[in-house]
């Protein structure tokens, strides 16, 4: 079988000319130490390595792609069901102006993903690709129809793909009226409408309950744009889907998102709302965590870059229900004005909040045979807070070589609901201040520093959670090829003296065009890690990490 595939994959190279190959390689090796503080233990093998290589081949209207993955064994923090070496993705396809067909594995998103999103995040080991068939048809300008059919990737064991138990089917249609209808081509209001229907099938082997074998999720979306104002939204209903997540209730689920924005040169304003109830939708009703989710329900807040903010109190959506709002404004004071100075000054203000939705139970008997335990409406929120983030930052360039970014964050998280720490109960509120300085020494040498302080609010005079933190980061880079960075996170305010530890890490890198080598040694917390000129999500670890990436 493999032999057959390779032949198909490479034989056109012999037969024709002008083939196009792109792809990339990433390999991460770790040698780890025991570290009880961050919960990292030295594995028996001592050395760990994750690698993958993507190869995408196109020739005229034909395409094929393949990814070989290897976990010998997987690096720390990666999902525990990845091992061996083998093919983790492979497809063949054909595309012209009318159709685009794929057989094999594919990634896909309908609308904003509330009903269906198959995607990957290799750095985190997340991959819920669909393996089956996809057909995209573009019958006329402005109209796109999609149909998908497949099993979802659950894991990768002994070098082989393992699938979720249920099959996923879906259709989606979208029309851009201004492109599709000639009369509306120059109409000042642009209008896009879309609709999706997704269904999953899984056998019912429950000894007690009669479970729906086919569960649908469907809805519609729209986007309007008039001059500088954009309004878009999507609403999805999910049918009765008793599962592990929802304690096998027979309620329908619903999800909605709405965004309103106004932008012009130098100013952007955004208001967003999101409401979710009973929307965990998986191709296997017995799974949990990030496994075989068919839909995508991200949290409605900014993804922060600075290490203390991004790693200590991140928030993840409550699939069973939440109501969230966000406001974001970015304004740039023009060059040559008093505040703008010579280069312009930007101010960004962002607020996001998330609340528990109201579940109405009057007139409902949760023990009756319907299995419906409450009713709920979109955006019907209670006062019970899950999350709040108020942040502001100012970017100021002083002269050609010196610039500053000043930031403040106030983050409040309900640790009983969105559990992030085992050291605390209830609401944790923290204040974070960051001063970032960038100084260009000469044409190629530059230095960048970050000073970060996190202050956790006390409760009844007692230190909450892990207390206060400070981080210092110094990064020296020589364009275009070298960087050296040192970062230390220090939990100086921990209520337990023995846990007032440092998290130092040194990272060095060499970059040549699309090749990149980095070596780091030290201790780091899980989260978004931005050093050496790139950002990536990393798991917690303590030890030596060597990574190599190459694009081609």
């Amino acid at each position, binding site marked *: 079988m*493999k*032999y057959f595939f*390779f*032949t198909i994959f*490479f*034989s056109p*190279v*012999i037969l024709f*000319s002008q083939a*196009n*190959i*792109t*792809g990339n390689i990433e390999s991460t090796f770790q040698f780890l130490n025991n570290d009880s503080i961050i919960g990292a233990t030295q594995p028996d093998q001592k050395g760990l390595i994750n690698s993958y290589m*993507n190869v995408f081949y*196109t020739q005229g209207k034909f395409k094929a792609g393949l990814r070989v993955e290897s976990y010998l064994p997987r690096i720390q923090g990666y999902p525990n069901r990845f091992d061996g070496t083998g093919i983790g993705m492979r497809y063949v396809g054909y595309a012209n102006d009318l159709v685009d067909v794929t057989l094999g594995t594919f*990634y*896909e*998103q309908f609308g904003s*993903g509330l009903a269906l999103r198959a995607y*990957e995040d290799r750095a985190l080991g997340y991959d819920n690709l669909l393996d089956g068939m996809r057909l995209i048809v573009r019958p006329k300008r402005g109209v796109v129809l999609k149909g998908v059919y497949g099993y979802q990737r659950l894991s990768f064991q002994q070098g082989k793909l393992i699938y979720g138990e249920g099959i996923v089917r879906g259709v989606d249609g979208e029309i*851009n009226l201004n492109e599709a209808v000639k009369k509306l081509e120059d109409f000042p209001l642009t209008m*896009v409408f879309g609709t999706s229907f997704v269904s999953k099938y899984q056998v019912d082997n429950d000894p007690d309950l009669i479970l729906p074998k086919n569960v649908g999720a469907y809805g519609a979306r729209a986007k309007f744009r008039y001059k500088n104002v954009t309004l878009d939204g999507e609403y999805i209903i999910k049918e009765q889907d008793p599962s592990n997540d929802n304690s096998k209730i027979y309620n329908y689920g619903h999800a909605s998102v709405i965004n309103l*924005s106004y*932008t*012009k*040169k*130098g*100013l*952007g304003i*955004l208001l*967003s709302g999101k409401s979710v109830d009973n929307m965990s939708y998986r191709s296997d009703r017995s799974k949990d965590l990030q496994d075989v989710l068919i839909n*995508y329900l*991200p*949290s409605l807040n*900014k993804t922060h*870059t600075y290490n203390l903010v991004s790693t200590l109190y991140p928030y993840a959506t409550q699939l069973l229900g939440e109501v969230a709002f966000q406001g*974001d*404004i*970015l304004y*740039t004071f023009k060059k040559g004005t008093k505040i703008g100075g010579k280069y312009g000054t930007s101010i*960004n203000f962002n607020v996001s909040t998330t609340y528990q939705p109201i579940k109405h139970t009057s007139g409902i008997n949760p023990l009756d045979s319907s299995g419906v335990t409450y009713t709920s409406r979109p955006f019907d929120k209670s006062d019970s807070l899950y999350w709040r983030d108020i942040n502001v930052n100012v970017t100021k360039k002083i002269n050609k070589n010196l610039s500053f970014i000043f930031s403040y964050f106030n983050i409040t998280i309900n640790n009983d609901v969105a559990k992030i720490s085992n050291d605390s109960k209830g609401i944790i509120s923290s204040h974070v201040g960051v001063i970032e300085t960038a100084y*260009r020494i000469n*044409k*190629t*040498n530059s230095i960048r520093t970050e000073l970060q302080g996190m202050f956790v609010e006390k409760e009844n005079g007692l230190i909450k959670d892990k207390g206060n933190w400070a981080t210092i980061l110094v990064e020296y*880079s*020589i*364009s*275009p090829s070298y*960087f050296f960075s040192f970062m230390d996170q220090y939990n100086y305010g921990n209520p337990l003296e023995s846990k007032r530890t440092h998290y130092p890490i040194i990272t060095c*890198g060499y*970059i040549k*065009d699309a090749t990149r080598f980095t070596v780091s040694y030290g201790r780091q917390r899980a989260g978004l890690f*931005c050093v*050496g*000129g*790139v*950002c*990536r999500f990393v798991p917690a670890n303590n030890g030596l990490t060597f990574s190599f990436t190459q*694009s081609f």
Partner: protein
Amino acid sequence: MKTYLSFLIIFLSFSHFFAQNEVENNEVITKKLPSIKLKDYKGKVVNTAELGLKGPIVFSFWATWCAPCKKELNAINDLYSDWQAETGVTLVAVSIDDEKTKSQVAIYVDGKAWEYIVLLDPNGDFKRAMGVNNVPHTFLVDTDGTIVYSHNNYAPGDEEKLYEEIKKLSLK
């Protein structure tokens, strides 16, 4: 046996194409811009391989949560009008923000008064096809759609190296 055969075939195909490269100096395998349909940040559908632009194109993959990406694009923005006048280059900023942060892209782009073409790649289709591991990753594409230079990261000064590469193209 099968494994052996497949390796033989791979080896033969590669040796064939390398041999041809040397003999005819005519590359059989090139790195052309993949054709992916994306929306720009105002909602218009575009094909990445048919942007209809004259002159070289810089594709810069970025995200609203990527500080070095924003530094790079803000640094280039200060120089962009000069670059355009001198070389006819166009910069296409490809945001890999997914639904979580996608709505913030327009706010950032207009709030910073960027003059770039901004495309949205919320499910990573173009990112995958271009072989991007991490952001920022910058590609330079010549007028034939061939990728001639790429660089994965940003340090202050990298924009000057990029500009040297752009000038090499416009001299051709």
